[in-house]
């Protein structure tokens, strides 16, 4: 019996503990946001956030996740109430087929949580593990930048970071 905490909700699953998280999410938990792209940690379509870190859920056995907070795309927002980052992707129309989108958004979310005002170079570097075959890279970069700017604006006037 494995207990997974996904988007703040606890789930007890009768499941082979070696099962990669991706299959548990898409199968047992019916959360199909994270996608199967390669199963090899090369494309990032399966990216979710575990304890603040972006990880490849295709290679992460659920046995390693007891007591560790997991966030998926479903936990960020939905089509009716998208999160700022999701809104930015919609505003920039940063998708063609959209298969890579969920993974991109999670990796970007982890970046913004850690570094709210990343430079473009930092964004490119952070996003490197994720592939987009349709070639939507520049729109994705714009969307992430847009979300960062929106989050900065929404921030209460705190001590400004050193320029």
């Amino acid at each position, binding site marked *: 019996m494995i207990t997974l905490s996904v988007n703040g909700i606890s789930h007890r699953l009768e499941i*082979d503990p070696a099962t990669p998280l991706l299959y548990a999410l898409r199968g047992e938990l019916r959360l*199909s946001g994270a996608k199967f792209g390669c199963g090899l940690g090369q494309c990032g379509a399966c990216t979710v956030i575990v304890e603040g870190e972006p990880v490849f859920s295709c290679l992460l056995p659920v046995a390693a996740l007891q007591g560790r907070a997991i966030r998926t795309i479903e936990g960020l927002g939905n089509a009716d109430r998208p999160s700022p980052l999701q809104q930015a992707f919609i505003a920039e129309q940063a*998708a063609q087929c959209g298969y890579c989108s969920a993974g991109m958004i999670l990796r970007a979310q982890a970046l913004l949580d850690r570094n709210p005002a990343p430079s473009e170079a930092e964004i490119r570097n952070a996003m490197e593990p994720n*592939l987009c075959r349709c070639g939507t*890279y*520049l729109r994705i970069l714009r969307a992430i930048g847009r979300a960062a700017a929106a989050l900065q604006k929404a921030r209460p006037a705190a001590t400004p970071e050193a320029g």
Partner: protein
Amino acid sequence: MPRSLSRRSVLAGGGALVVSFALSPTRGAAQPQLPGDLAEYPLLDAWIRIGGDGKITVFTGKAELGQGLKTALTQLAAEELVVAPAAILLVTADTALTPDEGYTAGSRSMQDSGTAIRNAAAQARALLIAAAAALLQVPAAQLRAKDGAVVAADGRRVGYGEAVGNQLLHERAKPDSVFVDGKSRRLIGKPVPRLDIPGKVSGGAAFVQDLRLPNMAHGRVVLPPSYAARLRQVDIAAVEHLPGVLKLVRDGNYLAVIAEGEYQAVAAMRALAAAAQWDETPDLPDPATLFATLAALPAHAVPVQGEAVAMPPGARVVAARYRRDYQMHGAIGPSCAVGLYEDSALSVWTHSQGVYPLRGALAELTGLAPAKLRVIHAEGAGCYGHNGADDAAADAALLAMALPGRPVRVQWMREQEHTWEPYGSAMQTDLRAALDRSQRIVAWDSGVRSMSHTTRPGGKAGNLVAAWHRARPVAQPVPEPPPLPEGGGDRNAVPLYTIPAVHVGYDFVPAMPLRVSALRSLGAYMNIFSIESFMDELAREAGADPVDFRLRHLDDRRASAVVREAADRFGWAAFSRRPGRGRGFAFARDNNLAAYLAIAVEVSVDRESGRVHLVRAIAAVDSGEAINPDGIKNQIEGGILQSASWTLYESVRFDRTRILSRDWSSYPIMRFSAAPDSLEVYLIDQPDRPFLGTGEAAQGPTAAAIANAVADAAGVRMRDLPLTAERVKAAIGE
């Protein structure tokens, strides 16, 4: 709003739908030509149905591939029916419900389906108004359509549900339609946001990979390690008793397993693969001499344009040979399908580009009559042509029949997609041209040699991988070169430039040492790369600026317009070269009849490593009437980056026995770090012109622009695709 794809709602179809007879195509009847695919399906209710409750359903035989088709078609219908896009339910490619529009390919969807739907919607609107006029006893001219109703000046309204009455739309279409006035347009020509993006960025079930039907089981196939491998033996006992395993399928060289849970299927697949022993034969060409092999294979000479041209005596002649390696689609989501066999009927959910041709092939494969087979399109990841989708569908069909009564989902693995998908053919082109004293091209003689660019199912089981592996295999049919304008290896082999004497020939090689089929833009990628690289070589010989040289030979005003726009926006005339950097230009009209595109790029070349980096790209495109300007830009941007990836990195690797490009580590593509600093697309909207296909317009010109920029930056003319760092470094030398 994404609808839940429950089996019930999908099979029921919803609403007042009468299916079969409206879909019989009327070919060959002597009628005035109807626009788009209305010619094949002239009844309006093949395309548009309105229920008694006023709900509007629009049918298209085309499929959403991630190119924004659903949004664009919805825009057209919603504009002409004067409703909000959310009021339209668009049903795509389903052999039980929609017209047969062949394949969603060749960038023809807007021309074929979009035109039909727009006209059908406009004519439906006219009929609804006329019906309302009769009901309200008011002249039709005093009524207007608005928000799903027909409204009179005095405020009386008749809802569409009431106006449609009984069979109002069961009418033959007319050749002409009255469209919503340009000034009143709300949707066409506007950057309407994609209807599917909100769901996709919030994890909604959107893809065939996400389809979950009640009581669904999971299948995995074990494909042979190489094309010619034969299964010597397999220890099934090792796998049968693994947790969750429901069924093992072995039929000749065809091996598969079905399990309850997905990971159980994956584990069983791995165990089955480990338990199988194969006999392999070195059956592939020697990669070191691939082009010698290509040159020696038997070929049919397909005339493309003109007769053999002699170079005028005394003229300066330039000649060049270009090559292109095999390249792959590499869809980010490996192919997937779901099959369900019950009550002697089979349903298959697939991201195939052509549900009807696939149905024909599945009928032959399974022995079922087409009437007992329903093939339903569900979106997959971007496919960029004929990839493994149809093959996964075949696997789903076979495994569903092995486990009747339960839906079976088959997911191909990354390695399977990479090694078994049909590639873009290796190609070679030879170009010769002569310049006269006024620095104009006076003669042009070129040839292209290629293997097939289409082995789509086309109703034949032999084009499905599963059919090759079963105990009673079906051989792959010998491919034929489709004539232009569809074409294959000859697409865009004829330059659009004004040249007095032009000869173009196509040597079509039917052999397929590696599996090949349609990859986005077909032969156009390589042919435009060749022509546009060659134009720069000619321009250099003529001592001319590359942009001026092209303008000198273009009489098509729309062509000159995109060339000038791209050059101006790039700052071509004022460009100053920094060390290690260069600029390049290219132009083409997709298939010489679809969208026009010109592109200017700046690259940097690192001499130490030979690595080429695309710094910035500026493109100008004319797609005729732009239904969704942002959709066009998105497609062009994506096409530029994808083409840059093909052009700089991509080449299928193989040895004498096996395909070696099995995943992203062995077939690298562009990542974020290699994406350019900036990418701009400028749209020349032509609202009074027909809309032109756009999805394949960027591939060829981008490749040539990059090669031309490398020549400018590093002084080396690269003629072999891809322009890898190793090749560029070797060309530069030390």
